Protein backbone atom coordinates (compact mmCIF):
# COMPACT_ATOMS: atom_id res chain seq x y z
CA UNK A 1 0.00 0.00 0.00
CA UNK A 2 1.51 3.30 -1.12
CA UNK A 3 0.85 6.62 0.59
CA UNK A 4 1.31 10.02 -1.02
CA UNK A 5 1.64 13.51 0.42
CA UNK A 6 -2.09 14.07 0.71
CA UNK A 7 -2.46 10.96 2.91
CA UNK A 8 0.35 12.16 5.14
CA UNK A 9 -1.26 15.58 5.39
CA UNK A 10 -4.55 14.05 6.53
CA UNK A 11 -2.78 12.09 9.26
CA UNK A 12 -0.79 15.09 10.39
CA UNK A 13 -3.90 17.27 10.63
CA UNK A 14 -5.64 14.65 12.72
CA UNK A 15 -2.73 14.42 15.16
CA UNK A 16 -2.58 18.19 15.48
CA UNK A 17 -6.28 18.35 16.40
CA UNK A 18 -6.06 15.45 18.86
CA UNK A 19 -3.15 17.05 20.69
CA UNK A 20 -4.69 20.51 20.39
CA UNK A 21 -7.80 19.40 22.27
CA UNK A 22 -5.63 18.14 25.13
CA UNK A 23 -3.65 21.36 25.28
CA UNK A 24 -6.80 23.46 25.18
CA UNK A 25 -8.44 21.54 28.01
CA UNK A 26 -5.40 21.67 30.27
CA UNK A 27 -6.45 24.90 31.91
CA UNK A 28 -9.91 23.60 32.83
CA UNK A 29 -8.49 20.72 34.90
CA UNK A 30 -8.26 22.01 38.44
CA UNK A 31 -9.46 19.20 40.70
CA UNK A 32 -9.23 15.43 40.68
CA UNK A 33 -12.94 15.34 39.86
CA UNK A 34 -12.26 17.36 36.70
CA UNK A 35 -9.54 14.92 35.76
CA UNK A 36 -11.30 11.62 36.52
CA UNK A 37 -14.98 12.46 36.12
CA UNK A 38 -14.92 15.51 33.84
CA UNK A 39 -16.53 17.33 36.78
CA UNK A 40 -19.80 15.55 35.84
CA UNK A 41 -20.50 18.28 33.33
CA UNK A 42 -20.73 16.78 29.84
CA UNK A 43 -23.94 16.76 27.76
CA UNK A 44 -25.54 13.43 26.86
CA UNK A 45 -24.85 13.40 23.12
CA UNK A 46 -21.12 13.75 23.77
CA UNK A 47 -20.94 11.09 26.50
CA UNK A 48 -23.15 8.91 24.30
CA UNK A 49 -20.78 9.02 21.33
CA UNK A 50 -17.80 8.55 23.66
CA UNK A 51 -19.60 5.54 25.17
CA UNK A 52 -19.34 3.63 21.91
CA UNK A 53 -16.09 5.18 20.77
CA UNK A 54 -14.20 4.05 23.87
CA UNK A 55 -15.14 0.52 22.91
CA UNK A 56 -14.22 1.07 19.24
CA UNK A 57 -10.73 -0.22 19.78
CA UNK A 58 -8.71 -2.56 17.67
CA UNK A 59 -10.84 -5.45 18.74
CA UNK A 60 -13.98 -3.84 17.44
CA UNK A 61 -12.91 -2.62 14.03
CA UNK A 62 -10.33 -5.19 12.99
CA UNK A 63 -11.95 -8.04 14.92
CA UNK A 64 -15.46 -7.44 13.61
CA UNK A 65 -14.14 -7.19 10.06
CA UNK A 66 -12.34 -10.49 10.55
CA UNK A 67 -15.47 -12.14 11.92
CA UNK A 68 -17.55 -10.69 9.11
CA UNK A 69 -15.30 -12.57 6.70
CA UNK A 70 -15.29 -15.75 8.78
CA UNK A 71 -18.93 -15.90 9.85
CA UNK A 72 -20.82 -13.37 7.75
CA UNK A 73 -23.86 -11.48 8.98
CA UNK A 74 -24.18 -13.76 12.05
CA UNK A 75 -21.51 -11.52 13.56
CA UNK A 76 -24.25 -8.91 13.93
CA UNK A 77 -25.51 -10.84 16.97
CA UNK A 78 -22.73 -9.09 18.87
CA UNK A 79 -24.77 -5.95 18.24
CA UNK A 80 -28.41 -6.74 17.61
CA UNK A 81 -28.70 -9.50 20.17
CA UNK A 82 -25.97 -8.44 22.58
CA UNK A 83 -24.86 -4.84 22.78
CA UNK A 84 -28.09 -2.99 22.01
CA UNK A 85 -30.41 -4.70 24.53
CA UNK A 86 -27.62 -4.48 27.10
CA UNK A 87 -27.18 -0.77 26.49
CA UNK A 88 -30.89 -0.18 26.92
CA UNK A 89 -30.84 -2.17 30.16
CA UNK A 90 -27.88 -0.33 31.65
CA UNK A 91 -29.40 3.03 30.74
CA UNK A 92 -32.87 2.38 32.09
CA UNK A 93 -32.23 0.14 35.09
CA UNK A 94 -28.62 0.35 36.23
CA UNK A 95 -27.51 3.91 35.63
CA UNK A 96 -29.69 5.28 38.47
CA UNK A 97 -27.45 3.37 40.91
CA UNK A 98 -24.13 4.15 39.27
CA UNK A 99 -24.86 7.83 38.81
CA UNK A 100 -27.28 8.38 41.68
CA UNK A 101 -25.10 6.87 44.39
CA UNK A 102 -22.32 9.33 43.52
CA UNK A 103 -19.69 6.62 43.44
CA UNK A 104 -16.71 7.49 41.30
CA UNK A 105 -16.11 4.11 39.73
CA UNK A 106 -17.68 0.70 39.24
CA UNK A 107 -15.45 -0.96 41.88
CA UNK A 108 -16.48 1.78 44.27
CA UNK A 109 -20.11 0.78 43.74
CA UNK A 110 -19.17 -2.73 44.89
CA UNK A 111 -17.60 -1.23 47.99
CA UNK A 112 -20.71 0.80 48.74
CA UNK A 113 -23.08 -2.06 48.06
CA UNK A 114 -21.09 -5.02 49.38
CA UNK A 115 -17.74 -4.69 51.10
CA UNK A 116 -14.07 -3.90 50.83
CA UNK A 117 -12.86 -7.31 49.64
CA UNK A 118 -15.32 -7.43 46.74
CA UNK A 119 -14.19 -4.00 45.63
CA UNK A 120 -10.53 -4.87 46.07
CA UNK A 121 -10.81 -8.00 43.97
CA UNK A 122 -12.65 -6.18 41.22
CA UNK A 123 -10.39 -3.10 41.28
CA UNK A 124 -7.14 -5.06 41.10
CA UNK A 125 -8.23 -7.37 38.31
CA UNK A 126 -9.81 -4.51 36.38
CA UNK A 127 -6.72 -2.29 36.65
CA UNK A 128 -4.45 -5.10 35.50
CA UNK A 129 -6.81 -5.97 32.67
CA UNK A 130 -7.08 -2.44 31.28
CA UNK A 131 -3.34 -1.85 31.00
CA UNK A 132 -2.98 -5.26 29.44
CA UNK A 133 -5.73 -4.61 26.88
CA UNK A 134 -4.21 -1.30 26.00
CA UNK A 135 -0.89 -3.10 25.51
CA UNK A 136 -2.49 -5.72 23.30
CA UNK A 137 -4.14 -2.94 21.31
CA UNK A 138 -0.77 -1.24 20.80
CA UNK A 139 0.80 -4.51 19.76
CA UNK A 140 -1.94 -5.18 17.23
CA UNK A 141 -1.55 -1.69 15.83
CA UNK A 142 2.22 -1.97 15.49
CA UNK A 143 1.85 -5.31 13.75
CA UNK A 144 -0.83 -4.04 11.39
CA UNK A 145 1.05 -0.91 10.36
CA UNK A 146 4.17 -2.95 9.73
CA UNK A 147 2.30 -5.45 7.57
CA UNK A 148 0.32 -2.78 5.75
CA UNK A 149 2.74 0.10 5.28
CA UNK A 150 6.09 -1.33 6.27
CA UNK A 151 6.33 1.04 9.23
CA UNK A 152 8.76 0.32 11.99
CA UNK A 153 7.06 -1.44 14.93
CA UNK A 154 8.89 0.62 17.56
CA UNK A 155 8.02 3.91 15.92
CA UNK A 156 4.30 3.10 15.54
CA UNK A 157 3.97 1.89 19.12
CA UNK A 158 5.81 4.79 20.71
CA UNK A 159 4.26 7.54 18.60
CA UNK A 160 0.70 6.31 19.24
CA UNK A 161 1.38 5.80 22.94
CA UNK A 162 2.95 9.21 23.41
CA UNK A 163 0.09 10.99 21.63
CA UNK A 164 -2.49 9.25 23.85
CA UNK A 165 -0.35 9.97 26.88
CA UNK A 166 -0.07 13.67 26.12
CA UNK A 167 -3.75 14.33 25.59
CA UNK A 168 -4.89 12.37 28.63
CA UNK A 169 -2.13 13.73 30.84
CA UNK A 170 -3.19 17.27 29.99
CA UNK A 171 -6.95 17.05 29.76
CA UNK A 172 -7.90 13.92 31.69
CA UNK A 173 -11.21 12.20 31.04
CA UNK A 174 -12.68 15.24 29.28
CA UNK A 175 -9.85 15.17 26.78
CA UNK A 176 -10.32 11.43 26.26
CA UNK A 177 -14.07 11.85 25.81
CA UNK A 178 -13.76 14.81 23.42
CA UNK A 179 -11.19 12.97 21.37
CA UNK A 180 -13.39 9.90 21.34
CA UNK A 181 -16.17 11.97 19.78
CA UNK A 182 -13.74 13.27 17.16
CA UNK A 183 -12.56 9.72 16.55
CA UNK A 184 -16.13 8.49 16.32
CA UNK A 185 -16.89 10.84 13.43
CA UNK A 186 -13.59 10.07 11.77
CA UNK A 187 -14.33 6.35 11.92
CA UNK A 188 -17.79 6.90 10.42
CA UNK A 189 -16.48 9.15 7.65
CA UNK A 190 -13.49 6.92 6.99
CA UNK A 191 -15.46 3.67 6.71
CA UNK A 192 -18.80 4.67 5.26
CA UNK A 193 -17.46 5.13 1.71
CA UNK A 194 -15.95 1.65 1.99
CA UNK A 195 -19.35 0.15 2.73
CA UNK A 196 -20.92 2.11 -0.16
CA UNK A 197 -18.23 1.25 -2.70
CA UNK A 198 -18.16 -2.39 -1.66
CA UNK A 199 -21.92 -2.75 -1.98
CA UNK A 200 -21.92 -1.04 -5.34
CA UNK A 201 -19.14 -3.28 -6.58
CA UNK A 202 -20.93 -6.42 -5.46
CA UNK A 203 -24.17 -5.29 -7.08
CA UNK A 204 -26.02 -4.28 -3.93
CA UNK A 205 -27.13 -6.54 -1.09
CA UNK A 206 -28.64 -9.07 -3.48
CA UNK A 207 -25.40 -9.22 -5.45
CA UNK A 208 -23.41 -9.69 -2.26
CA UNK A 209 -25.80 -12.43 -1.18
CA UNK A 210 -25.22 -14.24 -4.43
CA UNK A 211 -21.44 -14.09 -4.08
CA UNK A 212 -21.57 -15.17 -0.45
CA UNK A 213 -23.83 -18.09 -1.33
CA UNK A 214 -20.83 -19.39 -3.25
CA UNK A 215 -18.62 -18.95 -0.18
CA UNK A 216 -21.16 -20.75 2.01
CA UNK A 217 -21.63 -23.76 -0.24
CA UNK A 218 -17.86 -24.02 -0.81
CA UNK A 219 -17.50 -24.34 2.96
CA UNK A 220 -20.22 -26.96 3.19
CA UNK A 221 -23.06 -24.82 4.53
CA UNK A 222 -26.43 -23.84 3.17
CA UNK A 223 -26.33 -20.97 0.67
CA UNK A 224 -27.67 -18.37 3.12
CA UNK A 225 -25.24 -19.14 5.96
CA UNK A 226 -23.26 -15.93 5.48
CA UNK A 227 -26.21 -13.60 4.88
CA UNK A 228 -28.96 -14.79 7.24
CA UNK A 229 -28.37 -14.17 10.92
CA UNK A 230 -30.94 -16.43 12.60
CA UNK A 231 -31.94 -19.14 10.14
CA UNK A 232 -28.92 -21.35 10.69
CA UNK A 233 -28.85 -21.48 14.46
CA UNK A 234 -30.77 -24.73 14.89
CA UNK A 235 -27.61 -26.73 15.27
CA UNK A 236 -23.97 -25.78 15.73
CA UNK A 237 -23.00 -27.63 12.57
CA UNK A 238 -25.31 -25.56 10.38
CA UNK A 239 -23.37 -22.31 10.69
CA UNK A 240 -19.72 -21.25 10.44
CA UNK A 241 -19.67 -19.95 14.04
CA UNK A 242 -20.39 -23.41 15.42
CA UNK A 243 -23.01 -22.18 17.88
CA UNK A 244 -26.66 -23.03 18.44
CA UNK A 245 -29.39 -20.57 19.41
CA UNK A 246 -29.35 -21.20 23.17
CA UNK A 247 -25.61 -20.71 23.59
CA UNK A 248 -25.87 -17.66 21.36
CA UNK A 249 -28.79 -16.02 23.17
CA UNK A 250 -27.78 -16.94 26.70
CA UNK A 251 -23.99 -16.87 26.41
CA UNK A 252 -23.40 -13.99 24.02
CA UNK A 253 -26.70 -12.14 24.19
CA UNK A 254 -27.14 -12.21 27.93
CA UNK A 255 -24.04 -13.04 29.97
CA UNK A 256 -21.21 -11.68 27.84
CA UNK A 257 -22.88 -8.61 26.37
CA UNK A 258 -24.73 -7.53 29.49
CA UNK A 259 -21.60 -8.29 31.48
CA UNK A 260 -19.51 -6.02 29.32
CA UNK A 261 -21.87 -3.09 28.67
CA UNK A 262 -23.40 -3.02 32.15
CA UNK A 263 -20.41 -3.55 34.40
CA UNK A 264 -17.26 -2.55 32.54
CA UNK A 265 -16.02 0.72 33.97
CA UNK A 266 -14.36 1.55 30.65
CA UNK A 267 -17.75 2.36 29.15
CA UNK A 268 -19.74 3.15 32.32
CA UNK A 269 -17.21 5.88 33.17
CA UNK A 270 -18.38 7.85 30.12
CA UNK A 271 -21.95 7.91 31.38
CA UNK A 272 -20.80 8.86 34.86
CA UNK A 273 -19.27 12.02 33.39
CA UNK A 274 -22.70 13.20 32.19
CA UNK A 275 -24.13 16.44 33.53
CA UNK A 276 -27.35 15.06 35.05
CA UNK A 277 -29.07 11.82 36.00
CA UNK A 278 -31.22 12.03 32.91
CA UNK A 279 -28.16 12.61 30.72
CA UNK A 280 -26.36 9.69 32.35
CA UNK A 281 -29.31 7.40 31.65
CA UNK A 282 -29.61 8.64 28.09
CA UNK A 283 -25.88 8.11 27.43
CA UNK A 284 -26.07 4.39 26.57
CA UNK A 285 -29.42 4.89 24.80
CA UNK A 286 -28.05 7.60 22.55
CA UNK A 287 -24.99 5.42 21.99
CA UNK A 288 -27.21 2.51 20.95
CA UNK A 289 -28.56 4.33 17.89
CA UNK A 290 -25.30 4.65 15.94
CA UNK A 291 -24.08 1.41 17.50
CA UNK A 292 -26.80 -0.61 15.83
CA UNK A 293 -25.62 0.59 12.43
CA UNK A 294 -21.98 -0.21 13.05
CA UNK A 295 -22.32 -3.70 11.58
CA UNK A 296 -22.63 -1.97 8.21
CA UNK A 297 -19.34 -0.17 8.77
CA UNK A 298 -17.25 -2.92 10.32
CA UNK A 299 -18.83 -6.30 9.47
CA UNK A 300 -19.80 -5.62 5.85
CA UNK A 301 -16.20 -4.91 4.70
CA UNK A 302 -15.16 -8.34 5.99
CA UNK A 303 -18.01 -9.88 4.01
CA UNK A 304 -16.94 -7.94 0.91
CA UNK A 305 -13.43 -9.25 1.30
CA UNK A 306 -14.38 -12.92 1.49
CA UNK A 307 -16.95 -12.51 -1.29
CA UNK A 308 -14.41 -10.82 -3.52
CA UNK A 309 -11.83 -13.50 -2.85
CA UNK A 310 -14.35 -16.13 -3.89
CA UNK A 311 -15.49 -14.11 -6.89
CA UNK A 312 -12.03 -13.29 -8.25
CA UNK A 313 -10.45 -16.62 -7.43
CA UNK A 314 -7.30 -17.25 -5.37
CA UNK A 315 -5.10 -15.08 -7.58
CA UNK A 316 -7.46 -12.11 -7.71
CA UNK A 317 -6.90 -10.72 -4.26
CA UNK A 318 -3.57 -10.53 -2.50
CA UNK A 319 -4.78 -11.55 0.96
CA UNK A 320 -1.96 -11.80 3.52
CA UNK A 321 -1.56 -15.22 5.10
CA UNK A 322 -1.14 -16.11 8.74
CA UNK A 323 1.87 -18.13 9.92
CA UNK A 324 0.09 -21.45 9.42
CA UNK A 325 -0.77 -20.56 5.82
CA UNK A 326 -4.46 -19.85 6.40
CA UNK A 327 -6.00 -16.46 5.59
CA UNK A 328 -5.07 -13.72 8.04
CA UNK A 329 -8.63 -12.60 8.72
CA UNK A 330 -7.52 -9.55 10.67
CA UNK A 331 -6.36 -8.07 7.38
CA UNK A 332 -9.87 -8.12 5.89
CA UNK A 333 -10.66 -4.45 6.56
CA UNK A 334 -7.20 -3.04 5.75
CA UNK A 335 -7.24 -5.12 2.57
CA UNK A 336 -10.56 -3.58 1.52
CA UNK A 337 -9.31 -0.06 2.31
CA UNK A 338 -6.40 -0.62 -0.04
CA UNK A 339 -8.63 -2.24 -2.63
CA UNK A 340 -11.26 0.47 -2.96
CA UNK A 341 -9.66 3.70 -1.72
CA UNK A 342 -7.45 5.86 -3.95
CA UNK A 343 -4.78 7.99 -2.34
CA UNK A 344 -6.45 10.83 -0.44
CA UNK A 345 -9.45 8.82 0.70
CA UNK A 346 -6.95 6.17 1.74
CA UNK A 347 -5.40 8.70 4.11
CA UNK A 348 -8.79 9.24 5.73
CA UNK A 349 -9.43 5.50 5.99
CA UNK A 350 -6.05 4.72 7.52
CA UNK A 351 -6.30 7.65 9.91
CA UNK A 352 -9.71 6.35 10.97
CA UNK A 353 -8.13 2.97 11.61
CA UNK A 354 -5.44 4.56 13.76
CA UNK A 355 -8.09 6.63 15.51
CA UNK A 356 -9.86 3.45 16.49
CA UNK A 357 -6.71 2.03 18.04
CA UNK A 358 -6.07 5.24 19.91
CA UNK A 359 -9.61 5.68 21.22
CA UNK A 360 -9.63 2.12 22.49
CA UNK A 361 -6.33 2.67 24.21
CA UNK A 362 -7.38 6.00 25.70
CA UNK A 363 -10.53 4.39 27.08
CA UNK A 364 -8.46 1.79 28.86
CA UNK A 365 -5.98 4.32 30.17
CA UNK A 366 -8.59 6.68 31.62
CA UNK A 367 -10.45 3.80 33.26
CA UNK A 368 -7.14 2.54 34.64
CA UNK A 369 -5.96 5.81 36.13
CA UNK A 370 -9.29 6.36 37.88
CA UNK A 371 -9.53 2.88 39.37
CA UNK A 372 -5.88 2.98 40.35
CA UNK A 373 -6.18 6.36 42.06
CA UNK A 374 -9.56 6.04 43.76
CA UNK A 375 -9.92 2.31 44.36
CA UNK A 376 -6.35 1.21 44.98
CA UNK A 377 -4.19 4.19 45.92
CA UNK A 378 -6.74 6.12 47.96
CA UNK A 379 -8.28 2.97 49.43
CA UNK A 380 -5.18 1.05 50.43
CA UNK A 381 -2.07 3.18 50.11
CA UNK A 382 -2.66 6.77 51.12
CA UNK A 383 -6.11 7.58 52.38
CA UNK A 384 -6.45 11.20 53.46
CA UNK A 385 -4.36 13.22 51.07
CA UNK A 386 -5.35 16.52 49.50
CA UNK A 387 -7.33 16.61 46.28
CA UNK A 388 -4.31 18.07 44.47
CA UNK A 389 -2.32 15.06 45.58
CA UNK A 390 -4.80 12.68 43.95
CA UNK A 391 -4.84 14.77 40.78
CA UNK A 392 -1.08 14.43 40.70
CA UNK A 393 -1.30 10.67 41.33
CA UNK A 394 -3.82 10.38 38.48
CA UNK A 395 -1.45 12.06 36.05
CA UNK A 396 1.41 9.88 37.22
CA UNK A 397 -0.80 6.79 36.89
CA UNK A 398 -1.46 7.83 33.30
CA UNK A 399 2.27 7.86 32.57
CA UNK A 400 2.87 4.52 34.27
CA UNK A 401 -0.22 2.93 32.78
CA UNK A 402 1.01 3.79 29.31
CA UNK A 403 4.55 2.63 30.06
CA UNK A 404 3.18 -0.72 31.25
CA UNK A 405 1.05 -0.93 28.10
CA UNK A 406 4.14 -0.39 25.97
CA UNK A 407 5.99 -3.04 27.96
CA UNK A 408 3.05 -5.41 27.46
CA UNK A 409 3.16 -4.75 23.71
CA UNK A 410 6.82 -5.79 23.65
CA UNK A 411 6.16 -8.86 25.79
CA UNK A 412 3.52 -9.80 23.23
CA UNK A 413 6.06 -9.64 20.40
CA UNK A 414 8.28 -12.13 22.24
CA UNK A 415 5.81 -14.31 24.09
CA UNK A 416 2.44 -14.10 22.40
CA UNK A 417 1.20 -17.05 24.45
CA UNK A 418 1.69 -15.19 27.73
CA UNK A 419 -0.65 -12.47 26.50
CA UNK A 420 -3.22 -15.01 25.35
CA UNK A 421 -3.02 -16.72 28.71
CA UNK A 422 -3.43 -13.48 30.66
CA UNK A 423 -6.43 -12.52 28.57
CA UNK A 424 -7.90 -15.92 29.20
CA UNK A 425 -7.49 -15.49 32.95
CA UNK A 426 -9.25 -12.15 32.80
CA UNK A 427 -12.04 -13.73 30.81
CA UNK A 428 -12.48 -16.16 33.72
CA UNK A 429 -12.64 -13.28 36.19
CA UNK A 430 -15.09 -11.26 34.09
CA UNK A 431 -17.51 -14.03 33.26
CA UNK A 432 -19.37 -14.14 36.61
CA UNK A 433 -19.40 -10.36 37.29
CA UNK A 434 -22.83 -9.71 35.82
CA UNK A 435 -24.51 -11.99 38.35
CA UNK A 436 -22.92 -10.04 41.21
CA UNK A 437 -24.18 -6.73 39.88
CA UNK A 438 -27.67 -7.96 39.08
CA UNK A 439 -28.10 -9.44 42.54
CA UNK A 440 -26.49 -6.40 44.14
CA UNK A 441 -28.79 -3.97 42.42
CA UNK A 442 -32.05 -5.89 42.44
CA UNK A 443 -31.98 -8.10 45.55
CA UNK A 444 -31.42 -6.30 48.81
CA UNK A 445 -30.76 -9.54 50.68
CA UNK A 446 -27.47 -10.16 48.80
CA UNK A 447 -24.50 -9.82 51.16
CA UNK A 448 -20.84 -8.94 50.80
CA UNK A 449 -19.51 -12.36 51.78
CA UNK A 450 -21.89 -13.91 49.28
CA UNK A 451 -20.85 -11.58 46.46
CA UNK A 452 -17.19 -12.32 47.10
CA UNK A 453 -17.75 -16.07 47.29
CA UNK A 454 -19.86 -15.93 44.12
CA UNK A 455 -17.16 -14.07 42.20
CA UNK A 456 -14.37 -16.39 43.28
CA UNK A 457 -16.32 -19.59 42.64
CA UNK A 458 -17.69 -18.23 39.36
CA UNK A 459 -14.13 -17.54 38.24
CA UNK A 460 -13.10 -21.05 39.28
CA UNK A 461 -16.08 -22.50 37.42
CA UNK A 462 -14.93 -20.73 34.26
CA UNK A 463 -11.41 -22.06 34.70
CA UNK A 464 -12.65 -25.61 35.33
CA UNK A 465 -14.85 -25.52 32.26
CA UNK A 466 -11.79 -24.54 30.29
CA UNK A 467 -9.69 -27.27 31.86
CA UNK A 468 -12.22 -29.98 31.05
CA UNK A 469 -13.30 -28.97 27.57
CA UNK A 470 -11.74 -28.13 24.25
CA UNK A 471 -12.93 -26.62 20.96
CA UNK A 472 -12.72 -28.81 17.87
CA UNK A 473 -9.40 -28.59 16.07
CA UNK A 474 -7.58 -26.95 18.99
CA UNK A 475 -3.84 -26.99 18.56
CA UNK A 476 -2.59 -25.29 21.71
CA UNK A 477 -3.16 -25.64 25.41
CA UNK A 478 -4.40 -22.05 25.55
CA UNK A 479 -7.63 -23.42 24.11
CA UNK A 480 -8.28 -25.77 27.03
CA UNK A 481 -8.17 -29.48 27.74
CA UNK A 482 -5.67 -28.97 30.57
CA UNK A 483 -6.64 -31.91 32.76
CA UNK A 484 -6.40 -34.33 29.86
CA UNK A 485 -2.96 -32.95 29.04
CA UNK A 486 -1.81 -33.40 32.65
CA UNK A 487 -3.21 -36.93 32.65
CA UNK A 488 -1.33 -37.72 29.48
CA UNK A 489 1.91 -36.34 30.83
CA UNK A 490 1.60 -38.30 34.08
CA UNK A 491 0.23 -41.32 32.32
CA UNK A 492 -2.93 -41.43 34.41
CA UNK A 493 -6.19 -42.37 32.81
CA UNK A 494 -9.34 -41.71 34.77
CA UNK A 495 -12.41 -39.56 34.14
CA UNK A 496 -10.96 -36.52 35.90
CA UNK A 497 -7.98 -36.33 33.59
CA UNK A 498 -9.90 -36.41 30.37
CA UNK A 499 -11.81 -34.12 28.04
CA UNK A 500 -15.46 -33.97 29.02
CA UNK A 501 -16.78 -32.15 26.04
CA UNK A 502 -15.56 -30.99 22.66
CA UNK A 503 -17.24 -27.81 21.42
CA UNK A 504 -17.65 -27.25 17.69
CA UNK A 505 -15.77 -23.92 17.92
CA UNK A 506 -13.91 -21.50 20.21
CA UNK A 507 -16.98 -19.29 20.20
CA UNK A 508 -19.22 -22.05 21.51
CA UNK A 509 -16.70 -22.81 24.25
CA UNK A 510 -16.58 -19.12 25.25
CA UNK A 511 -20.32 -18.67 25.27
CA UNK A 512 -20.84 -21.77 27.41
CA UNK A 513 -18.02 -20.75 29.73
CA UNK A 514 -19.87 -17.51 30.36
CA UNK A 515 -23.09 -19.40 31.03
CA UNK A 516 -21.42 -21.75 33.55
CA UNK A 517 -19.58 -18.96 35.35
CA UNK A 518 -22.66 -16.75 35.55
CA UNK A 519 -24.88 -19.54 36.82
CA UNK A 520 -22.34 -20.60 39.44
CA UNK A 521 -21.92 -17.05 40.69
CA UNK A 522 -25.68 -16.47 40.71
CA UNK A 523 -26.47 -19.63 42.69
CA UNK A 524 -23.54 -19.31 45.11
CA UNK A 525 -24.34 -15.67 45.86
CA UNK A 526 -27.96 -16.47 46.60
CA UNK A 527 -27.18 -19.48 48.79
CA UNK A 528 -24.42 -17.77 50.78
CA UNK A 529 -26.58 -14.66 51.19
CA UNK A 530 -29.27 -16.71 52.85
CA UNK A 531 -26.75 -17.93 55.41
CA UNK A 532 -25.09 -14.59 56.13
CA UNK A 533 -26.28 -11.46 57.86
CA UNK A 534 -27.87 -8.92 55.54
CA UNK A 535 -27.14 -5.22 55.79
CA UNK A 536 -29.76 -2.91 57.14
CA UNK A 537 -32.12 -1.33 54.66
CA UNK A 538 -31.15 2.24 55.47
CA UNK A 539 -27.53 1.53 54.48
CA UNK A 540 -28.62 0.42 51.03
CA UNK A 541 -30.74 3.37 50.01
CA UNK A 542 -29.62 4.56 46.58
CA UNK A 543 -27.81 1.28 45.94
CA UNK A 544 -30.63 -1.25 45.56
CA UNK A 545 -33.69 -1.08 43.34
CA UNK A 546 -36.40 -1.72 45.92
CA UNK A 547 -35.02 0.87 48.36
CA UNK A 548 -34.37 3.66 45.91
CA UNK A 549 -36.78 6.27 44.75
CA UNK A 550 -37.48 5.83 41.03
CA UNK A 551 -35.66 8.53 39.08
CA UNK A 552 -38.00 11.19 37.76
CA UNK A 553 -37.59 12.17 34.16
CA UNK A 554 -36.50 15.75 34.20
CA UNK A 555 -36.38 15.86 30.42
CA UNK A 556 -38.72 18.37 28.86
CA UNK A 557 -39.39 16.70 25.54
CA UNK A 558 -40.89 13.26 25.10
CA UNK A 559 -38.05 11.95 22.97
CA UNK A 560 -35.47 12.82 25.62
CA UNK A 561 -37.09 10.56 28.22
CA UNK A 562 -34.95 7.50 28.86
CA UNK A 563 -37.88 5.06 28.82
CA UNK A 564 -39.26 6.36 25.52
CA UNK A 565 -35.82 6.38 23.99
CA UNK A 566 -35.24 2.82 25.22
CA UNK A 567 -38.41 1.55 23.56
CA UNK A 568 -37.55 3.26 20.27
CA UNK A 569 -34.07 1.74 20.31
CA UNK A 570 -35.41 -1.75 21.00
CA UNK A 571 -38.00 -1.54 18.23
CA UNK A 572 -35.34 -0.45 15.73
CA UNK A 573 -33.15 -3.32 16.89
CA UNK A 574 -35.94 -5.88 16.40
CA UNK A 575 -36.59 -4.52 12.91
CA UNK A 576 -32.92 -4.97 12.00
CA UNK A 577 -33.02 -8.55 13.29
CA UNK A 578 -36.07 -9.25 11.15
CA UNK A 579 -34.61 -7.69 8.01
CA UNK A 580 -31.49 -9.85 8.24
CA UNK A 581 -33.32 -12.88 9.63
Amino acid sequence: MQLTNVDWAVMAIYFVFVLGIGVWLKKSIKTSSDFFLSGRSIPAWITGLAFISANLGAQEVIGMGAQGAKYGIMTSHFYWLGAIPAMVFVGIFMMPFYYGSKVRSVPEYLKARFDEKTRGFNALTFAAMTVLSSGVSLYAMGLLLRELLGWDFDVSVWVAAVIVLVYIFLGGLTSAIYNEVLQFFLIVFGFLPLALLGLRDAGGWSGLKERLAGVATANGFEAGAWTESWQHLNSPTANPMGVEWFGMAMGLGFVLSFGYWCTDFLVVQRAMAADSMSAARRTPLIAAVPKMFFPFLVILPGMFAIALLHHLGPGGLDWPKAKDGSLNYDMAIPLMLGHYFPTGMLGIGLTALMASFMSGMAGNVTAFNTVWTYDIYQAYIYRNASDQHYLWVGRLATVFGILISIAAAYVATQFNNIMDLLQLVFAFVNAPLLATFLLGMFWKRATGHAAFAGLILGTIAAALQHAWTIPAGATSLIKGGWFAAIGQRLDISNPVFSIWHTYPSDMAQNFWKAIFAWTTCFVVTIVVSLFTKPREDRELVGLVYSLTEKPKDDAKTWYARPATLGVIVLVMCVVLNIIFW
Partner: protein
Amino acid sequence: MGLDIRIPIGAMFALLGAILAVFGIFADQAIYAKSLGINVNFWWGLVMLAFGIFMLVMAKRAKQN
Protein backbone atom coordinates in the same frame (compact mmCIF):
# COMPACT_ATOMS: atom_id res chain seq x y z
CA MET B 1 -16.01 22.88 30.01
CA GLY B 2 -14.25 25.78 28.33
CA LEU B 3 -14.41 24.21 24.89
CA ASP B 4 -17.32 23.44 22.62
CA ILE B 5 -16.24 20.18 21.01
CA ARG B 6 -18.19 21.07 17.86
CA ILE B 7 -15.59 23.73 17.05
CA PRO B 8 -12.56 21.43 16.70
CA ILE B 9 -14.69 18.73 15.05
CA GLY B 10 -16.13 21.24 12.60
CA ALA B 11 -12.77 22.81 11.88
CA MET B 12 -11.04 19.48 11.34
CA PHE B 13 -13.68 18.06 9.01
CA ALA B 14 -14.01 21.29 7.05
CA LEU B 15 -10.26 21.37 6.57
CA LEU B 16 -9.92 17.69 5.67
CA GLY B 17 -12.94 17.89 3.38
CA ALA B 18 -11.61 20.94 1.56
CA ILE B 19 -8.19 19.35 1.07
CA LEU B 20 -9.74 16.14 -0.20
CA ALA B 21 -12.13 17.90 -2.58
CA VAL B 22 -9.44 20.15 -4.07
CA PHE B 23 -7.10 17.20 -4.39
CA GLY B 24 -9.92 15.31 -6.08
CA ILE B 25 -10.25 17.98 -8.76
CA PHE B 26 -6.56 18.20 -9.60
CA ALA B 27 -5.32 14.65 -9.08
CA ASP B 28 -4.74 12.25 -11.95
CA GLN B 29 -8.14 10.70 -12.64
CA ALA B 30 -6.55 7.29 -13.28
CA ILE B 31 -6.38 6.67 -9.52
CA TYR B 32 -10.17 6.31 -9.44
CA ALA B 33 -10.08 3.00 -11.25
CA LYS B 34 -9.95 1.52 -7.75
CA SER B 35 -13.07 3.28 -6.57
CA LEU B 36 -15.18 2.03 -9.51
CA GLY B 37 -14.50 5.15 -11.55
CA ILE B 38 -16.03 7.45 -8.93
CA ASN B 39 -14.03 10.50 -7.89
CA VAL B 40 -14.46 9.59 -4.26
CA ASN B 41 -11.97 12.21 -3.10
CA PHE B 42 -13.98 15.06 -4.58
CA TRP B 43 -17.43 13.87 -3.57
CA TRP B 44 -16.57 12.57 -0.12
CA GLY B 45 -14.47 15.69 0.43
CA LEU B 46 -17.59 17.76 -0.22
CA VAL B 47 -19.61 15.64 2.23
CA MET B 48 -16.98 16.08 4.93
CA LEU B 49 -16.72 19.78 4.22
CA ALA B 50 -20.50 20.14 4.55
CA PHE B 51 -20.48 18.21 7.83
CA GLY B 52 -17.66 20.38 9.15
CA ILE B 53 -19.50 23.58 8.29
CA PHE B 54 -22.69 22.21 9.85
CA MET B 55 -20.84 21.53 13.12
CA LEU B 56 -19.35 25.03 13.11
CA VAL B 57 -22.75 26.60 12.50
CA MET B 58 -24.25 24.57 15.36
CA ALA B 59 -21.48 25.74 17.67
CA LYS B 60 -22.02 29.35 16.64
CA ARG B 61 -25.75 29.12 17.23
CA ALA B 62 -25.22 27.59 20.67
CA LYS B 63 -22.92 30.46 21.54
CA GLN B 64 -25.44 33.10 20.50
CA ASN B 65 -28.18 31.64 22.68
